[in-house]
C-alpha cells in the first residue's frame, strides 16, 4: 500500500477499497474514515429531510381529499334536500290540480256532477251510440215542483237544503253506471246507459216516487215532488236534439199537473 492510494485527491470509494484490501491500516485511513462518516451523516440528514417533506405532502393531500369529501357530502345532502322539498311542492300542486278539476266538474251545493261534466258525458255517450247502435241511452230531466215558492217563503238557505235532500234521494235511486247531474237551478239531468223503451218509464217512475218518499226537509215546507221528462237518444241525432225532446216532455209533465213523469 502506498501513500498514493490514500491521498485525498483520489476518490473516496477507491481509498476505502484500498484500505479494506490492506493487511494493516495504511496511512490516511483515519481521514478516509472521517470523510466516509461525514458523507454517511449528510446522507442521513438528506433522507430525513426528504421523508419529512414527503410526509407533509402526503398529509396535505389527505387533508385536501378530506375537505373534498366533506364538501361533496355537503352538496349531496343539499341536493337530497332540494329534491325532497321539490317533490313536496309537486305533490302540493298535484293535489291542487285535483281539487280544481273536481270543482270544475262537480256542483258544490249538492256534490253532484255539474252541467259541464254532464255535457261531456252526453257527447261521449252520443258518439258511442253512433258507432254501435246497441248502446242507446235514455235522458231524463227532473225539475222540483214549486221550488220558487220555497225560496220565496222560506229563504234561499231553506231552498238550498231542499235541493240537497232531493239530490240525495235522486242519487240513491241510481245504479252504478247511471249519472245524475245538477243541470241548473232546480233541474237535474240523468243519463241512463243501455236503457230501452220499455224500462224508461219504470225508471222515471222510480225517481219520482223516491223523491216524494224522501224525508221531509224541515217543518212547514211541503215534501218536495218532481216532474220528469224523459226520452231515448236516437242514434245519429245531436245531443241537443235529445235534450230538446226531454225538455218538451218535461213541459208536458208540468202541464199535466206536476209530480208526473212524461215520455216522448
Amino acid at each position: 500500500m502506498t501513500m498514493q492510494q490514500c491521498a485525498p485527491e483520489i476518490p473516496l470509494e477507491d481509498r476505502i477499497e484500498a484500505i479494506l484490501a490492506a493487511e494493516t491500516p495504511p496511512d490516511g485511513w483515519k481521514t478516509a474514515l472521517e470523510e466516509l462518516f461525514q458523507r454517511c451523516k449528510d446522507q442521513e440528514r438528506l433522507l430525513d429531510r426528504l421523508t419529512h417533506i414527503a410526509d407533509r405532502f402526503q398529509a396535505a393531500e389527505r387533508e385536501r381529499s378530506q375537505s373534498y369529501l366533506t364538501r361533496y357530502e355537503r352538496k349531496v345532502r343539499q341536493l337530497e334536500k332540494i329534491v325532497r322539498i321539490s317533490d313536496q311542492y309537486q305533490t302540493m300542486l298535484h293535489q291542487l290540480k285535483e281539487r280544481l278539476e273536481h270543482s270544475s266538474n262537480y256542483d258544490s251545493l249538492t256534490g253532484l256532477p255539474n252541467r259541464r261534466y254532464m255535457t261531456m258525458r252526453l257527447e261521449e255517450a252520443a258518439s258511442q251510440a253512433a258507432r254501435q247502435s246497441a248502446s242507446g241511452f235514455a235522458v231524463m230531466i227532473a225539475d222540483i215542483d214549486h221550488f220558487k215558492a220555497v225560496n220565496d217563503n222560506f229563504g234561499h238557505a231553506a231552498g238550498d237544503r231542499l235541493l240537497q235532500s232531493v239530490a240525495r234521494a235522486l242519487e240513491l235511486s241510481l245504479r252504478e253506471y247511471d249519472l245524475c247531474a245538477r243541470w241548473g237551478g232546480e233541474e237535474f239531468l240523468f243519463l241512463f246507459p243501455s236503457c230501452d223503451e220499455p224500462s224508461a218509464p219504470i225508471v222515471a217512475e222510480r225517481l219520482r216516487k223516491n223523491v216524494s218518499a224522501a224525508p221531509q226537509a224541515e217543518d212547514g215546507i211541503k215534501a218536495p215532488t218532481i216532474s220528469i221528462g224523459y226520452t231515448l237518444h236516437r242514434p245519429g241525432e245531436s245531443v241537443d236534439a235529445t235534450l230538446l225532446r226531454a225538455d218538451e216532455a218535461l213541459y208536458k209533465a208540468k202541464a199535466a199537473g206536476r209530480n208526473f213523469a212524461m215520455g216522448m
Partner: protein
Amino acid sequence: MNNLEIAQTASTPKVLADSAQGRVFMAGDSYPENPFEFFQPIIDWIDTFLDKNDKPLGFDLELIYLNTSSIRAMMDIFDRLEESHQNGRSVSVLWSYDPDNERVGELAEEFKEDCTFPFTIAPRA
C-alpha cells in the same frame, strides 16, 4: 345602503329589503324564468347588508309555491344566515302561511331543518 324593491309578477314574488329596518319581505309564488337573474340581486343585497353593518337581519316570508331553482336559492340564503348566526350575528326568519294551505307550513319545516337561528313558522291569523 340602498333598499331593494321588486314588484310581484305571476312567476316571481314581491320582494322588499329595507336596510334601515334590517328586514327582508318576500311574498308570493316563485318560478322565475331566469332564477339566477332574479335571486342574485337579493343575495347580493343580503351579503352587502351582513358585510357592511352589524344590525340584526330579519326575514318575513309569505312564499307559497317555489320551483326547484327557487328552493335552491332560498337554501343558499338560509345558509348565509346560518353562517352569520354562527359568527354571533342576530338573524331570524318568520315564515307565515295561509292556514287553508297546511302544506306550505310543512314545506317551511323542511327548510328550517338545518337552521339553528330563530326560525318561526306560523299560520296567518
